[in-house]
């Protein structure tokens, strides 16, 4: 048996099933890998060897006793540190929550535990998921395993780096404007943002409530589908959770047949502003789909060009309200200013200044402005109308085609610090991923090879109508076979075949 950390989740599950591996072995192997390489990757903010091994041992014992276990039982997983876990700190990558241990599990964590997945630890992220590079983590940047001088993308950069760097076969991310798909693309792994309402948000620290969604990150489409199936389903604790059957994503991921499928190439998401090496890989991918029997057409979604503008109003507005609760009264960092005895108001203001990083403050101020009296209609109100237009564009497009495709990102991974001084430039990186969040539709990014100009991974995004998540996996699985993208040999070592 090869090194367990190189195995995909489905392969681990099979090995556990036939007894060639134990969960304790696999879990320990990943813990060892984390101990070896995480000082270079910065993927984890907290590692929980005892908890992970206890779950692994329990699963092994139950399996030995003949119990029938869920498919992924015993397969370790990493969880983005925006998702509440009893017994492990949950910081949201922020100083304001340093050391906070939640008294309750997120619903998705409850589901992971019920399915027997050992939780390796909590992964790094941009503070409160605000960023596209992981440089906005209050603790440390996460790094791209393909080139540790480069960003792994964000905000689920730690989860992406952990999966790409063989520290975990599976990870949970959250995606508000591309935070699963973009780091997936940057690190050459699969990342899926499910349909809004498909996965519970209960216990996931909110960034922008109407946009946030939890999803799987993995090194294969099938692995992502297996994890998706564990996470998805109605949760009565989340009022926006859909009371509908979970799309049969695993079946779709095993099918991978695009014959006769109508595929739309989004005209507005490509060409100018997209790195040539990215565009080239994307065009090749589309060609492969056509060769495999898909019917490829160009589709126009004119409102997408206003997506970033709408997103950078709706998101900060909701952020400004969602992050108001971090006020040093009931939990979290409390900073008391020097001088005469401070009032609660002064302590709140001082704690929020000390506890939040620059990007978080920038978005809170922007959102406060967009909602304030006299500006609401012009900013927040107009942005919500653009959401309607974006949703209409999707609806019209899905009249013509079954799925849409685009490059996931305009560029491959950039160097740390390269865009730190220009927030707007960073925001523009989200152009292709944002429309799906605005409209609530599902999206998947998968690796399609390395860009000829930078030698770094390129991701292609597949988008489907709400609740048709299975189409993403069907197309993803087909592409995975057709493209046969190179995988990472080892950290900073480039590709291996």
């Amino acid at each position: 048996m090869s090194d367990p950390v190189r195995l995909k989740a489905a392969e681990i599950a099979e090995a556990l099933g036939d007894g060639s591996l134990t969960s304790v072995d696999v879990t320990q192997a990943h813990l060892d890998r984390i101990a070896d390489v995480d000082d270079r990757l910065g993927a984890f903010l907290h590692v929980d060897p005892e908890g992970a091994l206890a779950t692994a041992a329990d699963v092994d014992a139950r399996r030995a006793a003949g119990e029938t276990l869920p498919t992924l039982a015993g397969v370790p997983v990493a969880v983005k540190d925006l998702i509440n876990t009893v017994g492990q700190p949950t910081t949201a990558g922020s100083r304001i929550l340093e050391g906070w241990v939640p008294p309750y599990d997120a619903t998705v964590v409850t589901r992971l535990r019920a399915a027997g997945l050992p939780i390796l630890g909590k992964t790094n992220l941009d503070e409160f998921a605000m960023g596209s590079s992981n440089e906005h983590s209050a603790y440390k940047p996460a790094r791209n395993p393909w080139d540790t001088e480069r960003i792994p993308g964000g905000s689920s950069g730690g989860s992406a780096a952990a999966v790409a760097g063989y520290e975990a076969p599976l990870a949970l991310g959250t995606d508000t404007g591309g935070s699963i798909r973009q780091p997936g693309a940057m690190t050459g792994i699969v990342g899926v943002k499910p349909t809004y309402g498909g996965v519970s948000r209960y216990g996931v620290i909110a960034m922008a409530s109407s946009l946030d969604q939890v999803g799987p990150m993995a090194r294969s489409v099938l692995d992502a589908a297996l994890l998706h199936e564990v996470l998805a389903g109605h949760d009565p604790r989340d009022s926006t959770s859909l009371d509908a059957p979970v799309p049969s994503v695993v079946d779709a991921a095993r099918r991978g047949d695009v014959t006769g499928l109508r595929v739309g190439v989004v005209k507005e998401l490509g060409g100018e502003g997209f790195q040539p090496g990215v565009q080239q890989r994307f065009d090749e991918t589309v060609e492969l789909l056509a060769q495999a029997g898909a019917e490829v057409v160009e589709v126009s979604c004119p409102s997408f060009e206003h997506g970033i503008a709408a997103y950078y109003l709706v998101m900060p507005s909701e952020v400004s309200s969602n992050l108001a609760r971090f006020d040093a009264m009931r939990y979290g960092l409390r900073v008391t200013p020097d001088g005469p005895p401070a009032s609660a108001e002064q302590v709140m203001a001082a704690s929020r200044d000390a506890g939040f990083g620059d990007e978080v403050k920038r978005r809170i101020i922007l959102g406060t402005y967009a909602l304030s009296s006299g500006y609401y209609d012009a900013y927040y109100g107009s942005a919500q109308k653009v959401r309607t237009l974006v949703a209409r564009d999707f609806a019209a497009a899905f009249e013509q085609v079954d799925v849409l495709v685009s490059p996931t990102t305009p560029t491959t991974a950039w160097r740390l610090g390269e865009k730190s001084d220009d927030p707007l430039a960073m925001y523009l990186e989200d152009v292709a991923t944002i429309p799906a969040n605005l409209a609530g539709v599902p999206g998947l990014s998968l690796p399609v090879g390395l860009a000829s100009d930078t030698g770094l991974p390129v991701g292609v995004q597949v988008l489907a109508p709400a609740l048709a998540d299975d189409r993403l996996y069907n197309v993803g699985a087909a592409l995975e076979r057709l493209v046969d993208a190179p995988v990472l040999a080892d950290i900073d070592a480039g590709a291996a075949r």
Partner: protein
Amino acid sequence: MSTQTSTPALVPFERAIERYDPVLGLEVHVELSTATKMFCGCATAFGAEPNTQVCPVCLGLPGALPVVNAKAVESAIRIGLALNCEIAEWCRFARKNYFYPDMPKNFQTSQYDEPIAFDGYVDLDVEGETFRIEVERAHMEEDTGKSLHVGGATGRIHGADHSLLDYNRAGIPLIEIVTRTIEVPAEKAPAVARAYVQHLRDLMVALDVSDARMDQGSLRADVNLSLKPKGSATLGTRSETKNVNSFRSVERAVRFEVSRHAGVLDAGQSILQETRNFHEADGSTSPGRPKSDADDYRYFPEPDLAPVSPSREWVEELRGTLPEPPAERRKRLQSEWGFSDLDMRDTVGAGALELVVATVAAGATPAAAKKWWLGELARRANEAGVGLDELGVTPEQVAGVQALIDEGRVNDKLARQVLEGVLAGEGSPEEVVTARGLEVVSDDGALGAAVDAAIAANPDVAQKIRDGKVQAAGALIGAVMKEMRGQADAGRVRELILEKLA
């Protein structure tokens, strides 16, 4: 600090309304008596130990999400219907954003421009006249936690060193009911304001949606008031008086604010737009928080909650559950009971209406029920400084005592002793009669002996009766009653005396 250099003198209400007309607005918050909170499954019991009825949702912990209590929506719709409101076909919750330590999320989940109920009215009978109060809206929201201010002399916020927060109340469902501006003849304004709040209380009790107790804060009234010079159409600046926690205080707050506004205006100064705090002790108000541009609540639709769109079938079904409107019910009861207007007003005024209804239901006549509740029981409640409903005697027990009288088993005096036993927790009226041996004696054997003894002891009186002075029998009856410690059947004693001395 205020630029006003002195506080102008109050102008007596009667003089103020010679020159100004008050314009009123009332905002009433009703705490619903649901088993659980508005957005989570925490219990809502009043007076529980601090922070024992809390969870991630109502503590505003990171990641927690709200889910609407169906019963609260049902209650909101029923309240809306009882206020003759339209019920929204589709409406949303909204976040009202402001920072305050008693509010865990630092936004209140409320409703903004899409209330669940709107455009209603209530008709009030005040001193024989009917006034229509228009209701602008009734919307759903959540309550805040409670702060205890520690340090400083008064236990109040000013001068406190720190505060202690209990979030048991945070998230309890509230319905806020807002009137349109109320313009009634100036001299009636205080009574109309009081009658409106009283009406809402009765309505909430009849709907069984709230305890509606002003003393416990489950019904809270804010009085908004401005003055305009008589004959003028220009509205003045308004004040918002809070902490008004009894019906009487509503009336007093209106009177005080009219006097205060008139004084300020007469002095050529202007009214500040501010909240005022009402003081129960002297009926005055004092400045609270100034209103300013800083009150920018940045409302936006609550993304964590789905919109509410009550089906018309549901609304009609709920309309079918509405109780008889209080005013109509009172008219019906008055006629059924044969009460005069005065009887009815006394009964309502004493807060005894529901008690009389229940006592009658338990078998007493309306007149007897009223006699007990407005007489003996009112006196005892007054002495004990409690409400009639807190006295510790149920309408069923009162009816039981009355039944003993009607059956001739006790007289009025014994009945009061039975009541005393009931109040002392000695059990049902029947049990008290047995335990205390209070039943009247009408057995001729026992009575005959006592009568003989009385005749023997009072030969002069006996002779007078023999001589035909029948009214002298009273003295002998008194002697028998005394002998038998009040437990003799006085009518039978009289008959025996007259028989024996015939």
